[in-house]
């Protein structure tokens, strides 16, 4: 009898611990979702309220129609989707071929290749981005020259602010030669996943 009881107590204790872990893990996400539905007047308060008193969809509307940054949400979604789709498709195909080679064949440089993969994966992105940015500028500069004249005014305006000029350039380029600007990014993004085959 006592053993059954102690087993139940332990079970309850473990479940309680599990709940605690889940709650702590969920809290930041919960707070993000809750704040998303709060009107501006409720964002800051000396005693935080877990739930919005007057839930609103205004924040979502503002994000989608672009009154926050000046560009509509779809613009950013489009960029992310492009990079994701291109990099997932390209890296899956390339990784599939490499995986077949490594799994099905025994050949001379197999071990060398296998050892090289994790090393390649671990190289810091910030290091590689210098060379890729330099190359990207060369690549993109051709497309930029094709951008109609009046756009350069916008580019100059964007550059006037306190933003690094490479970012201003990217922003000013934004809509016009979008594909050109994104292409190196997509390819760069997938450099990491080559090893994960």
């Amino acid at each position, binding site marked *: 009898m006592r053993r059954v009881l102690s087993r139940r107590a332990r079970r309850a204790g473990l479940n309680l611990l599990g709940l605690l872990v889940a709650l702590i*893990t969920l809290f930041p996400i919960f707070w993000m979702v809750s704040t998303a539905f709060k009107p501006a007047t409720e964002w800051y308060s000396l005693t935080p309220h877990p739930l919005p008193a007057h839930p609103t969809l205004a924040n979502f509307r503002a994000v989608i129609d672009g009154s926050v940054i000046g560009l509509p949400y779809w613009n950013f979604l489009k960029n992310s989707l492009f990079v994701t789709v291109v990099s997932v498709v390209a890296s899956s195909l390339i990784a599939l071929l490499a995986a077949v*080679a490594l799994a099905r064949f025994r050949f001379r440089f197999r*071990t060398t290749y296998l050892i090289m993969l994790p090393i390649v994966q*671990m190289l810091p992105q910030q290091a*590689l981005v210098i060379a890729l940015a330099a190359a990207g500028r060369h690549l993109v500069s051709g497309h930029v020259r094709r951008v109609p004249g009046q756009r350069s005014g916008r580019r100059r305006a964007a550059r006037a602010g306190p933003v690094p000029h*490479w970012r201003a350039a990217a922003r000013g380029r934004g809509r016009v030669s979008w594909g050109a600007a994104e292409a190196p990014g997509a390819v760069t993004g997938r450099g990491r996943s*080559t090893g994960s085959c």
Partner: protein
Amino acid sequence: MVRTVPGQPGRLGSPAGPSSGAPLGFRQRGVIFTRRHRLAPYLLLLPSAAVIATLVLWPTIQIAEFSFQNYGLPQLAGSEPTQWVGFSNYSHVLHDPEFWLSLRLSVLSAVAMVPLTLIVGTLVGVLLSRLGRKMAAFVSSVSVLAWATPAVSASVIFVWLATPDGGVVDWFLTKLPPWLGGGAHWAGFSWTNAALPAYALATAVVVWTGFPFIAVSVLAGLRTIPVEMFESARVDGAGPWQIFWRVTYPLLRPIFQVLFLLSVIWDFGVFTQVFIIIGELGQRDEYNLGIYEYATAFTLPPAYGLASALAFILTIILLVITVGYVRASVREGALR
């Protein structure tokens, strides 16, 4: 196709040629050529090798070259010639107090992040293995939610939670009893204005997004250990602490080694979280190595040569750690 690859001669998979008459098509001849010289694996590896060469090897060679040059915007545009400057970029970096400050922050933050992530992850992994089916499914799916949160979103959420004007963290700390370190002095405390609190916050973000991976890996390892092992240890009178260190840890040592080295590599090179928490490039005394290098390369005037020297130093540090990782994986048999 040029035969650069040494094919192994002899032992043909198929007869060398047609024994009778009809001329072969281009495709058939290609197949026979590939078979005869055992080219299939090399052809399959060709795309990935090409990608690695153009996106990893070539840039690495480039930054190695830049690091010995005075490469900047004029050189990129071609309006001024590139000059070789020897080791002056490196000596500039090594004499720069900011480099040592950022290196110190990188090392110290990894020293905080790695053990915390590993300990929390292992504890949750062990807990998951002891929970009932439904509860385990619930806790692990919640953890995956944290793991799947992009680094940018996670950092923004945590900055928001810890904002000095009415953030939950400061509010909670003022409500905490004084013997737990709480008190009114936490009201309006800024977590992003100095290096120590900023990196404490970054550590929280890294642990929050990083522990689920450790937990799931440890859980997967625990599933491979037969239950009898734990039962016999228990019968012999071992407590949970002893069982972990005498049974679980020795059996899972290869997994822990790989997880440790992966965490070191990730946390030493942590960029996004810190970049957002310190307010992009706002305060130079809060830079870690990656951000210092990024700032050198991408704020005006960009000093690609100097940044490449920094990048190369960072690469070599990570490479040394990676060699440890590769050795551990070879020992574990992952590369067989």
